[in-house]
């Protein structure tokens, strides 16, 4: 899952970026409101983490602009302001969640997962399709009783497929949500997808990730919506 972190404190931004990448997220960083706004308009982020006090456009204004532009990307506000009226202002500007500094990193991760869960429509913290299960919190994936040994990118692609089951995803969509600043040849995606496919069917199980000719890939599952 790909996210944008808008934070002007560079040390904190790079630490958070590192931590989030550790957890399999593709993370872009913007250090001021203006460049944040430019990126939000161009890239299809799954989550935006927004500081309130920013040079350029402040977080509240940025969030309002984002909602006014019809973007429904989940927004988590991250700020040193902890008074009730600040939190109310933040949430009322269109943010989905609010976390005050200093925060615990595991809590930030949990809140990001909760936001993604809200987006996927299922409240189950474990993503399922047929006999495939993926736990974003424990970062484990299983097919039936067999646990899958996946690389970070493979895990990210499977998570994307599970969150968008039965939906056709283009190669560029996959690239945008799993890689940050993707600039490679598009056959990199094909390489990762076929590797994932192989790991999913290693014990002779039927293939669930199908190629849609000329468009991209689709995870087909009867019990998933």
């Amino acid at each position: 899952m790909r996210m944008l972190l808008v934070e002007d404190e560079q040390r904190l931004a790079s630490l958070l970026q590192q931590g989030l990448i550790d957890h399999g997220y593709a993370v872009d960083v913007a250090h001021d409101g203006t460049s944040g706004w430019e990126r939000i308009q161009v890239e299809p982020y799954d989550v935006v983490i927004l500081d309130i006090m920013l040079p350029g456009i402040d977080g509240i204004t940025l969030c309002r602009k984002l909602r006014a532009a019809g973007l429904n990307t989940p927004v988590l506000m991250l700020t040193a302001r902890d008074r009730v009226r600040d939190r109310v202002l933040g949430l009322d500007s269109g943010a989905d969640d609010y976390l005050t500094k200093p925060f615990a990193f595991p809590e930030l991760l949990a809140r990001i997962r909760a936001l993604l869960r809200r987006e996927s429509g299922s409240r189950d913290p474990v993503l399922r399709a047929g006999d495939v299960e993926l736990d974003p919190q424990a970062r484990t994936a299983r097919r039936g009783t067999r646990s899958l040994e996946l690389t970070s990118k493979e895990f990210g692609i499977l998570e994307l497929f599970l969150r968008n089951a039965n939906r056709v995803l283009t190669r560029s969509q996959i690239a945008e949500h799993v890689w940050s600043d993707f600039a490679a040849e598009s056959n990199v995606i094909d390489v990762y997808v076929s590797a994932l496919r192989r790991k999913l069917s290693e014990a002779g199980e039927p293939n669930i990730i199908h190629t849609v000719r000329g468009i991209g890939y689709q995870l087909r599952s009867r019990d998933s919506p």
Partner: protein
Amino acid sequence: MITLLRRVVSSLQTIRVRLTLWYVALLTIVLIPFSAGLYIVLQHEVTTSNDAALHFSAQHVIDSLNSNGGAGALGRAVAGLPIGTVVVLYNRFGERIEASTRSTLPQLPVPQPPNGSPAPIYQTVHLSNGDQWRVLTTPLFLNGTLAGLLQVAESEAQSQSALRELALLLAIAVPVTLIIASAGGVFLAGRALRPISKMTQTVRTMRPQDLSQRIPVPATADEVHQLAETFNALLQRLEQSFERERQFTADVSHELRTPLSILRTQVDLALERGPSDAGAALEAMRTDIEHLQRLVSDLLLLARAEHGEAIGQHEPLRLDNLITDTVELVRD
């Protein structure tokens, strides 16, 4: 009983009661000497006017005797005198010759026999029956030679009773005046102090968290108005100072949050990554802690400056160095 006493003592401490007490004390100091003076002056006036009357009576008798002497001369002389005036004639040896018969004769003092040319004597005589008389003893010259003494006397009963009535009146009027005055004093002091007790009420309902309240300022330009304005100015300064303090605290907490967040994230990530990564994380954390320490000592310095404590001393410095240092600091 003790609580009542305590209440009385505490009420003595209020300005209202003290003002009244001062007022009554001053009024007492004025009223009592005034009454005493009035009494003394009137008493003196009465005596003087009685003496004048006696003098005129004596003159009248002497004139009358000089113009036509002989038997019954005294009776004729006395006829023109006010009723109640007693006239007694003595010879040169101090022996009584004749007395007017128009009234019962009181026991008057027997005068000394005159020698040379004695002066007239005024005396006040208290008789055994309680009456008080004023007596004038004057030498009687008939055709230029000292013939004897003439005593003219008048009862002072009437004037004495008038003076007694006056004394009684004053004795009643002064305390009554004082009582009315003290009641009026309590009322007036209460009225004058009512705006102040209103102020007390307002200030008492104020909470330290909310200093935006103000005392209502009376329209009159008097002392209470001044007090209210002074109080409001004080409240304003207090409110501003509280607001500054609150803002400062908010700024401090905000300034501390960012380095604390960095530190916390650093720790959380190091715990997740395990011991292999710990050395670098600890190194980074030490830098963060040093930064935090600098921040705290800067804030402390600021807090001291806010409270007006002297900080360091002035010295010349190179502005370009300061700017370069600051730019570097911000760039880091």
